[in-house]
């Protein structure tokens, strides 16, 4: 196959590209320049699109003896991921930009362009298994990235290769070291690549400005404080609420109402959610028959929750949770899995959380 390796400059995509070469594919490396500011330097483990990362990716490509190019996708990334991220927060939701990037950049803009240029597939260093068109969790549960890939549709998965899903992160680093890659010991990237200092609230404040509003306690209906912008809050959040409750019981964010800029907080007993409603779902391998017993994961690092999935009248999903959950934030994806201890939990699809009850 003619394969395009998306190379971030990190250890995962380096080893993924190497494995694609080993598998006998005709591999070309591409680094995606996503930041409009190319002079950005890495700060610690954050960020993924600096000049240094492009250099690291190029070094690996040269060692592998494959062609290497930099594709400038900064404009698309800014529109489809960064602006979307800001708009979602402004609307009181909590988006997942990595999922959006996979959906619109890596397996849309990049894959489309790769196909047009004559490539058969895009290989990435995501930790997830993809065998016979079926997407499953990585064998390394701690590094599993199937959550942010669940938004992909069958035609996108048909053009994807994830060679790392069957191995642990530890093994990936070992393989990088065995090959003498300079990135073998490079720190994992985490957080959001376009917010290199990790200060999401500060980033949003610069974009959206101060938008003060009330903090209301759901138990009493009383305004118990003010905030500088609803974008500083996520449903389920406990720390940093900036209010002192009358009693000693902890408070959680229950809801965000962007028009009146109201942040509603309440005690743990009010924070539990038994049913989740989503937008029209996407399915990784075609729509299953509903209703369905499955497991649902409600945020990137959340655990699976057994549930019953039904079709809602508006074409979305109504997901009934077996046990109530806290912190189900609108804007996050509800990702559905069919448990499979042997081959890895199968990713069925996802729907963006609209609301809860």
């Amino acid at each position, binding site marked *: 196959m003619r394969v395009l390796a998306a190379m971030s400059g990190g250890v995962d995509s380096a080893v993924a590209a190497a494995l694609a070469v080993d598998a006998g594919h005709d591999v070309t490396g591409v680094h995606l320049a996503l930041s409009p500011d190319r002079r950005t330097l890495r700060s610690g483990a954050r960020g993924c699109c600096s000049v240094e990362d*492009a250099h690291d990716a190029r070094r690996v490509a040269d060692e592998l003896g494959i062609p290497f190019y*930099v594709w400038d996708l900064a404009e698309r990334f800014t529109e489809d991921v960064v602006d979307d991220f800001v708009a979602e927060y402004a609307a009181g939701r909590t988006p997942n930009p990595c999922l959006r990037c996979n959906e619109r950049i890596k397996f849309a803009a990049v894959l489309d362009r790769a196909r047009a240029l004559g490539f058969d597939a895009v290989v990435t260093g995501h930790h997830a298994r993809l065998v016979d068109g079926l997407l499953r969790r990585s064998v390394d549960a701690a590094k599993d990235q199937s959550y942010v890939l669940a938004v992909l549709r069958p035609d996108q998965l048909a053009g994807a290769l994830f060679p790392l899903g069957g191995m642990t992160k530890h093994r990936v680093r070992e393989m990088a070291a065995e090959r003498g890659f300079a990135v073998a010991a490079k720190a994992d990237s985490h957080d959001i690549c376009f917010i290199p200092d990790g200060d999401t609230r500060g980033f949003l404040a610069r974009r959206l400005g101060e938008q003060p509003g009330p903090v209301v306690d759901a138990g009493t209906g009383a305004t118990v404080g003010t905030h500088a912008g609803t974008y500083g809050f996520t449903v389920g959040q406990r720390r940093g609420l900036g209010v002192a409750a009358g009693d000693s019981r902890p408070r959680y964010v229950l809801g965000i109402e962007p028009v009146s800029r109201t942040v509603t907080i309440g005690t743990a007993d009010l924070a539990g959610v038994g049913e989740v409603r989503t937008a029209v779902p996407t399915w990784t391998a075609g729509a299953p028959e509903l209703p369905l017993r499955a497991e649902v994961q409600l945020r990137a690092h959340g655990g699976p929750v057994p549930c019953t999935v039904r079709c809602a009248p508006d074409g979305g999903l109504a997901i009934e949770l077996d046990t109530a959950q806290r912190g189900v934030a609108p804007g996050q994806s509800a990702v559905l899995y069919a448990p499979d201890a042997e081959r890895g939990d199968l990713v069925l699809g996802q729907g963006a959380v609209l609301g809860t009850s």
Partner: protein
Amino acid sequence: MTYLDHAATTPLLPEVLAAMTEQLGRVGNASSLHASGRAARRVAEQARERLAEALGARPSEVLFTGGGTEGDNLAVKGIFWARQEADSRRRRLVVSPAEHHAVLDSAEWLAKHAGADLTWVSVEPSGRVTPEALRAALGDGSDVAVASLMWANNEIGTVSDLAALAAVAHEVGVPLHTDAVQAVGQVPVDFGASGVDALTMTGHKLGGPMGAGVLLLRRDAECMPLLHGGGQERDVRSGTLDVAAIVGLQVATCLAVAGREERATRLRALRDRLVAGVVVQVPDAQLNGAPLDDELAGGPGRLPGNAHLSFPGAEGDALLMLLDARGVECSTGSACSAGVARPSHVLLATGADPDRARSSLRFSLGTTSTDADVDAALEVIGPVVERARRAGMNRR
């Protein structure tokens, strides 16, 4: 492999390799007083004399540098500083927006850090700077420190008439530097006859080694050094002479100059066939720069080996990648440090719109180019352009 990127760098000539290898085995610092030092100095000075002769300069006007970027930086900054020190009213720098980044970024650095005022000389749609445009930019010249205008453009291959430009600059007492990195060995370059005050050239564009170049600097031109130290090269460029590289540079330059006319005729025929063949397959391809048969006083108005074309609807970097995959090596003409393709600043300077500037490719032929190379490029260009057009990025 079809190498059509001689404007980026050229294969080392066998004669150069032999001459350099001979020197690399020897010991001797050309500044030392003992026998080994004298022997090294003799070789370096002989090279200096031969280079001067080939370029129409005096030996004392030849300053060895580390290449084109250094020569441009030294001339633009060094002459600016010297002229401003002599008269603090000389704050203006006159450059064209189509210059190489070694000149552009030096000028912008001076504007940011040394109080220079930049005056841009407008370029014609061909990329050429005319004497009239320079005259307009200079004004009465009393507040101008230095002007820098390239002899031949590295992207689109347009040649300007440096003798005419130098005459205009001297009318108002302004020294003129020229980046002749692409011109030497391609078009007639006579430093003395041109009248320019400083000229940058480099070895690896004409079959010599990388990291070796020359700044020709008129004996009466004032230039402050970038590098301070042992006082070599008229105190303008300190540093131990790299004798092997200097000999390689000299041998390459002399061969390039001696064989220029014959090679130019051959490359021009190959280049014209390449362009004609491309246009047959891609009828809406646009030639950038001066017409292929353009003539100036004293030589061709376009570098004989340069073909620079835009392919509307295709992106330069997609074309480059597809050609690379098919064994044809060329260039989009400009890339930043991270390798991100940007619209060519040269094309933008000529008034081209950003889409045209983004969809361009430079094929540059040189000593080793053959009919087979042209055939190889023509065999793939049609399908490659068609495919690249389907793969438009940043568009919906």
